[in-house]
């Protein structure tokens, strides 16, 4: 950035010096000198401007190279890093969705096994109580023994099945490792892209200063605010505890709604 400041400083110095000389020559009626001075000023300004535009162009070029975006070659074998990041994030969505569905499949497959065992145990328990109260005759007792025997078998089978499902649920969580790695890579890319973009913005602001371009910041901000209209939805809040305008949980929602008369 030093060279930018230098070229800008040089321009500003020349501007100050020449401005005084310009006024002097005009006051003395030396118009030829005045025109000469204006020409010199223009030259310095143009030189600075060309320099800055040149830097901006080089920086843009290197950004395009480093992002590997080439609009002229959409079918290039080497995909751009942004396209690659997008694909990686789609992979995260696919993987998390798969894990969620797999987990729910296994829970749904386990529930009836446990319900059946609970039902069987409940029925046996009732009859067992009757046996303890000596209300069961010999033939019925033989039947009860068979049912206890078959329950023990069912119980062992069910246990194996549910244990297996629990184990598979555990394994389905491996998406966390894989998606974590992918997201970290994408985060690194986003940070890199941001710092490159910031460099471009700084360069462009130098060009703006040489060219004397002023931006309406209020209008830009207003446009940005409009994008944040509440109807659009913002998705999950990451820093809910640090923001005043966001509820921090269901209790907050309930308080807010009850204050509105709900």
């Amino acid at each position, binding site marked *: 950035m030093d060279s930018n400041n230098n070229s800008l400083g040089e321009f500003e110095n020349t501007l100050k010096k020449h401005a005084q000389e310009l006024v002097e020559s005009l006051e003395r009626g030396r118009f030829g000198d005045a025109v000469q001075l204006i020409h010199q000023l223009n030259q310095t300004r143009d030189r600075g401007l060309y320099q800055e535009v040149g830097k901006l162009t080089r920086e843009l070029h290197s950004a395009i190279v480093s992002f590997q975006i080439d609009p002229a070659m959409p079918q290039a074998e080497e995909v751009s890093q942004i396209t690659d990041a997008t694909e990686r994030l789609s992979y995260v969505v696919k993987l998390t*969705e798969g894990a*969620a*569905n797999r987990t*729910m499949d296994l*829970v*749904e497959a386990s529930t009836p096994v446990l319900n059946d065992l609970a039902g069987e145990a409940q029925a046996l328990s009732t009859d067992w109580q009757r046996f303890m109260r000596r209300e069961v005759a010999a033939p019925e007792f033989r039947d009860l023994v068979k049912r206890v025997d078959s329950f023990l078998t069912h119980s062992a089978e069910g246990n194996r099945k549910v244990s297996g499902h629990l184990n598979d649920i555990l394994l389905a969580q491996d998406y966390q490792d894989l998606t974590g790695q992918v997201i970290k890579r994408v985060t690194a890319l986003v940070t890199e892209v941001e710092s490159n973009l910031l460099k471009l913005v700084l360069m462009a602001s130098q060009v703006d200063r040489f060219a004397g371009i002023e931006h309406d910041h209020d209008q830009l901000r207003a446009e940005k605010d409009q994008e944040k209209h*509440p*109807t*659009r*939805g*913002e*998705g*999950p*809040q990451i820093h*809910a505890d640090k923001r005043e*305008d*966001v*509820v*921090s*949980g*269901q209790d907050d*929602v309930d308080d*807010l*709604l009850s204050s*509105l008369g*709900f």
Partner: protein
Amino acid sequence: MNKDMKILIVDDFSTMRRIIKNLLRDLGFTNTQEADDGLTAMPMLESGHFDFLVTDWNMPGMSGIDLLRKVRADERLKTLPVLMVTAEAKRDQIIEAAQAGVNGYVVKPFTAQVLKEKIEKIFERVNS
């Protein structure tokens, strides 16, 4: 509360629809149908005689808040109880939903207990 009531679950993520469906089944509500945004939900509501609507906010096509407004503007649907289950957590948004006529608001992530409480509260009010 009528356990046979017909419930429409609207969310663009199939896993979230499945979670809500499972939680509702745990609470004894088995008569559920699904839609993935307001645009697919609206014709189902118009022709399906639903008793209860559970909707997300942020969805492509038609958002949950727009769906809520459409429901309230529809002569036959305006009294349909609506529960919003969403990640949208800005105070302005909750106020907006309340003004649009929502009957309950649950922020994600939520627990089975919260869902149960809100549904019970909605039907206590509706039936009283």
